[in-house]
């Protein structure tokens, strides 16, 4: 009967890394302590950094606007705590780039009451008002990419939204953020969904959930409001199903054309935690101040799913959860997450997980063998690219050929090829470098 279990199909290829979600998937979301110092980078999202509207020495209340959106492709920032602006200065970031940010000293005795702004009334708001409300709330994609949600929801001229897909896949190993959000915040999710439906007017609405979160699937099915036409889709477990293009293919069977966005086939994909955030913030006109983060991995003693204030420094977090003997720490999941080199970086809106490995889990520099043409990477690549060939070209620095003939720029760096390669060839690592070189060359050619 297994064959008939999934109504929807799935995408081609993909891999099955160990799930490692058992440690935290049963732990309810808990409020994390407030850090005495909050570090709020101005560039937490893709697009233009926000513009500060406070200055040194200002007292801010929790939820107060501290930086406004700098144009359309930008979102505002709200004070995550009540406190005093200590300085506006460079902040450390995970990529090593120096960015400006706001340092807020939180008041230890404050009740941390949230101030509210202009509420968006679901019944009377126009789609445009909902989108601007989403921008005003500072909402970005909470799945990790931190792309401004209102931009994603703006349907370009000549296109219509046929499918609204809520992404509850969470295919990254270790992470249980979306899983807990679905289990505990179903009201917010469905409220957010109402806003999204009103803004987009889609023909079909789906919520896609992988089979390893069956309890969440059943919970949402159970609490689904009767007037909401939502189809719940149970998907087989496979990485990287949470990637937009893969999820669109898995649910609708349509393929997003190369180099295009899902809206090309009429699909809009929104992360489930983002949806919940919309449902929670918009009725009160609040801004985003905190998010759910899974803190897990063998190097963490108090694993769990925590509601953490945005801007909390990583060092403070690891102290609270008793991180011990950590060799490697990364933000996001182990497949696409970024290694942290500096514990003073803060968590941002896009941080979905913090995973810490002890020395024995951390990959040592394994010896690299010659490619034996086993074809494992071809069977792994969700886009059916030829990572083996691309790897050889990358070694020979034939970057332009990779882009023109082998669709290098389609690669979204899921890392499946590197995961399966028996010869330990750093394939996706090559492609990352190659992509940035090709992009630079293309930009140069244009100018």
């Amino acid at each position, binding site marked *: 009967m297994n064959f008939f279990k999934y109504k929807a199909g799935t995408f081609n290829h993909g891999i099955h890394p160990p799930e490692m979600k058992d440690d935290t998937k049963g732990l309810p979301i808990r409020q994390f302590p407030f850090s005495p110092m909050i570090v709020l980078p101005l560039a937490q999202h893709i697009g233009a950094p926000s513009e500060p509207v406070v200055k040194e020495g200002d007292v801010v209340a929790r939820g107060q606007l501290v930086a406004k959106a700098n144009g359309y492709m930008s979102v505002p920032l709200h004070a995550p705590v009540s406190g005093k602006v200590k300085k506006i200065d460079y902040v450390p970031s995970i990529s090593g780039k120096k960015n400006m940010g706001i340092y807020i000293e939180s008041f230890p005795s404050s009740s941390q009451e949230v101030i509210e702004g202009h509420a968006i009334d679901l019944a009377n708001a126009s789609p445009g008002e909902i989108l601007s409300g989403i921008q005003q709330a500072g909402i970005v994609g909470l799945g990790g990419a931190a792309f401004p949600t209102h931009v994603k929801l703006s349907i370009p001229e000549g296109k219509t939204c046929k499918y609204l897909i809520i992404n509850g896949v969470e295919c990254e190993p270790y992470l249980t953020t979306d899983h807990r959000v679905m289990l505990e915040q179903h009201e917010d999710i469905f409220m957010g969904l109402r806003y999204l439906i009103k803004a987009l007017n889609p023909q079909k609405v789906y919520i896609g959930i992988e089979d390893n979160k069956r309890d969440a699937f059943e919970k949402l099915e159970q609490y689904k409001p009767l007037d909401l036409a939502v189809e719940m889709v149970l998907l087989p477990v496979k990485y990287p199903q949470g990637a937009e293009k893969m999820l669109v293919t898995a649910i609708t069977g349509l393929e997003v054309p190369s180099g295009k966005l899902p809206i090309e086939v009429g699909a809009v994909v929104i992360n489930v935690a983002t949806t919940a955030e919309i449902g929670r913030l918009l009725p009160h006109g609040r801004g985003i101040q905190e998010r759910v983060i899974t803190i897990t991995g063998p190097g963490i003693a108090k694993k769990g799913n925590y509601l953490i204030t945005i801007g909390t420094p990583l060092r403070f977090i690891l102290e609270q959860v008793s991180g011990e003997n950590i060799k490697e720490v990364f933000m996001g999941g182990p497949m696409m997450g970024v*290694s942290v080199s500096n514990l003073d970086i803060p968590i941002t809106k896009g941080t979905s997980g913090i995973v810490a490995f002890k020395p024995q889990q951390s990959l040592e520099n394994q010896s690299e063998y010659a490619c*034996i043409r086993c074809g494992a990477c071809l069977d792994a690549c969700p886009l059916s690219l030829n990572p083996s060939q691309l790897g050889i070209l990358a070694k020979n620095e034939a970057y332009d050929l990779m882009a023109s003939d082998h669709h290098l720029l389609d690669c979204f760096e899921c890392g499946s090829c590197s995961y399966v390669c028996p010869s330990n060839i750093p394939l996706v690592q090559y492609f990352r470098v190659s992509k940035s070189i090709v992009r630079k060359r293309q930009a140069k050619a244009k100018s």
Partner: protein
Amino acid sequence: MKDQTLQIRTSPHLKRPLATNTIMLHVVLSLIPVMAFAVYAFGITALFLISTTTIACVGTEYVLNGKVKGKQNIKDWSAVLTGVLLALTLPPGFPLWMAFVGGMIAIALGKFVFGGLGQNLFNPALVGRAMLQAAFPVAITTWTETLVNGRFSHIIPSSLTIPFLEPIKADAVSGATPLSAFKFDKISTDVQDLAFGFTSGSLGETCAFLIVLGGVYLGFRKMLNWRIPVGILGTVATLTGILFYLDPVKYPSPLMMLFSGGLMLGAVYMATDMVSSPLSTIGIWIYSFVIGLLVVLIRIWGGLPEGVMYAILFGNALAPILDKSIPHRIYGMSSKNQNKNRA
């Protein structure tokens, strides 16, 4: 929290625990029953022959890597595998010095001149054997009976032929292989004897049952593409089945075809060499079919009793063409703009 040295690496931070050297090692390990049976059937000589080719292969790899590349890759076990496979394709009484030369040729001409592991066009062990067959046609078709008394205490005399000075002793020619017996004398061999290896032939040609066992193990561990042996054996069985149905006297039975000669070893261990087989699944099926077809053609209508080696070498030569010519559908690409450059 104390400051400590953090390791930074780019994602992914997880890795499937299956490395190239592990794959090669497991292929060698899965051949141990076959080797053990060869020693049981042909005696101590088989052990010497396997050791000789293995030492020749590993030694050649070591010397060439050291002299030319300056980088060793002995630890990947691929040279050991080539040595073992080469020995399994040779007759038990094959002169050891010739086997040594074969091992050197397999690595030097079969693999090294192409650029080492991963670059070779052909299966190195088969290149070695093809050279031996061309250079020493008598020695390589001189067969010995299985289960001879005293096989554990006496070496088959032809093994110790002095290099370049001595011809192969004609009296060593004894047991004809089942395939040559059928081809030239129309004598069929009992399938049970074939499957369990009580017939004369090369070291690894005899016990089809153990080879299948090793192949099934590797297939389950995903260290071998099951489509290749299934494709080759399926093609051979189907084609000879049709012929046998048409004329059972003139043509051998499909079962005899499957279990005799080097077909099992070739289909399970030689044609599946990842380096010299195609990448795409469609390519794999075409490749297997062509090899199966050639085996039948050579065995039934060709001048030689056995054709697995040439069939696989031909398949190897075909593999890059198959990889290049089979259109590869990329996600999000309609077939029309598949090969067009992107703006």
